[in-house]
């Protein structure tokens, strides 16, 4: 079965949700015209990234009653959408979130579980940690969402894979860093490496939507990618430029790759669980 994926490699207006919503709707229309079944926006695509104290003032909750989500849910009648936003829960905790919208419904919301708070990052000062990593069913496949630092750690993609995700949806607002003599930034090289590695290790589609543009002195480098279950690059967006990146994927590739390479079949989850319990137990032991 073929599916057309689209990646909205956009720039955003920092803290201006209305302006960003307009861009989302226009990209959705364009992606629909290009025949896309699913359009994926980057991390915090409705708000911008370096929010600091803006965070609590731009939060929305994904429901048909929300003025920002109502039109997005409407647009999801035409094609599925993944959007990035600040989610405020009932207890008024703020999360960096990604929502999967399809046929007017919210199928899944992921709260970022790893909030980088080091070097140029300060996320856990402003946001709460998510505490669930779950795959979910879309009308045509099972997927999982991880947001930026979530997939710098191996465990979230691994858990999503075990939970049945065949398409790993990664979204980022990745600030470029590491200028050397190479034509590519170190941060871009690293992200591309691990995306390709996840596709190969988990024999799954790995889809990465990264944003572009500048916030204060930070710049976001784009270069969104889709890798197939063989770890082959199917498409790559331009660096540093806004773009709608589309690609047709063949879900039957999962069958062909996993018939050849049964890594999923052979994954010993009970062994992993036993060893995890032992390691955690021993660590507890050393802390006493």
């Amino acid at each position, binding site marked *: 079965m073929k599916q057309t994926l689209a990646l909205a490699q956009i720039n955003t207006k920092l803290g201006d949700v209305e302006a960003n919503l307009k861009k989302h709707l226009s990209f959705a229309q364009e992606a629909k015209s290009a025949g896309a079944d699913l359009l994926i926006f980057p991390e915090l695509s409705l708000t911008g990234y*370096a929010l600091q104290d803006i965070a609590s003032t731009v939060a929305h909750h994904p429901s048909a009653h929300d003025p920002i989500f109502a039109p997005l849910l409407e647009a999801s009648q035409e094609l599925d959408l993944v959007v990035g936003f600040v989610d405020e829960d009932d207890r008024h905790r703020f999360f960096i979130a990604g929502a999967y919208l399809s046929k007017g419904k919210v199928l899944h919301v992921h709260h970022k579980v790893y909030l980088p708070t080091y070097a140029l990052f300060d996320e856990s000062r402003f946001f709460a940690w998510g505490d669930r990593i779950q795959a979910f069913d879309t009308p045509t496949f099972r997927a999982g969402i991880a947001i930026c630092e979530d997939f710098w750690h191996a465990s979230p993609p691994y858990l999503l894979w075990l939970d049945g995700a065949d398409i790993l949806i990664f979204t980022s607002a990745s600030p470029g860093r590491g*200028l050397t003599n190479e034509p590519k930034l170190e941060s871009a090289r690293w992200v591309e490496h691990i995306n390709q590695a996840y596709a190969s290790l988990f024999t799954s589609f790995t889809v990465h939507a990264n944003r572009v543009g500048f916030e*204060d002195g930070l710049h976001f480098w784009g270069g969104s990618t889709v890798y197939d279950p063989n770890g082959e690059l199917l498409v790559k967006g331009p660096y*540093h430029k806004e773009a709608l990146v589309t690609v047709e994927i063949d879900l039957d590739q999962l069958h062909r790759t996993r018939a050849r390479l049964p890594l999923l079949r052979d994954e010993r989850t009970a062994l992993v669980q036993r060893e995890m319990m032992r390691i955690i137990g021993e660590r507890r032991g050393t802390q006493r």
Partner: protein
Amino acid sequence: MIDLAINAKLAHTILTGFIKSEITRAGFKRAVIGLSGGIDSALSCFLAADALGPENVLAVRMPYKSSSQDSLDHAQLVINTTAVQSLTVPITEIVDPLFERLPDADDMRRGNVMARTRMIILYDQSEAFKGLVVGTGNKTEILLGYSTLYGDSACALNPIGDLYKTQVRQLSRDLGIPDEIVDKAPSADLWAGQTDEDELGFTYKEVDKLLYLLVDERYSPDECIEAGFADEFVHQVIERVRRNHFKRVLPPIAKLTNRTVGYDFLYPRDWGT
């Protein structure tokens, strides 16, 4: 092996994008740059001209009577090469009356007065030309504090502040900035015969490697010494970086209330844009 080489094409893409983004989102389309005739301001001017179009960049030459003719000529060379707009405002008539009243002022004080006078002219032109002041300080001088606070360090945005002097030289050469500007001895030209490297007591080439290890690679002082740098040099540079940190941060505000600018009132500069 300490390799400070950078990919010029990638640096150019990011830095011109940065200039355009920061200026246009603030509601402007133009830039103002003080052109000394040296390499740093030449590079900022080239980048701004590429980012905004030369017609949207105003290069201002602000010579003092003791400024070298070379400085003026090299600044003119940058103006001619980039085809930016230009203006020359000599500062002699502005600062000399003050110096007459303060005959005891030494070179340091006079140099600071000149740097701050140039800042006043640039910010006046910022309003007159409706452009933002683009900075010309590189990473080496920012770390060493080799600048006049509220003088040459004053700007609305700085495209070259994360490039060491060594990298400024490489990028300038790669972008086609004329050799006579790239190759000459760096100087603040605040008094005749002044050169940065004489005044600092070491070369940029040497200190850039040390700063790279200390700052970018997070080496300890002992690890830098092990890597081959002289003990005294390492500690002299570390002390200089520490002592000048006040130039890199906003002045501290005494905290009294529950929400104070700088501590718990935190917004990005690009707020809402």
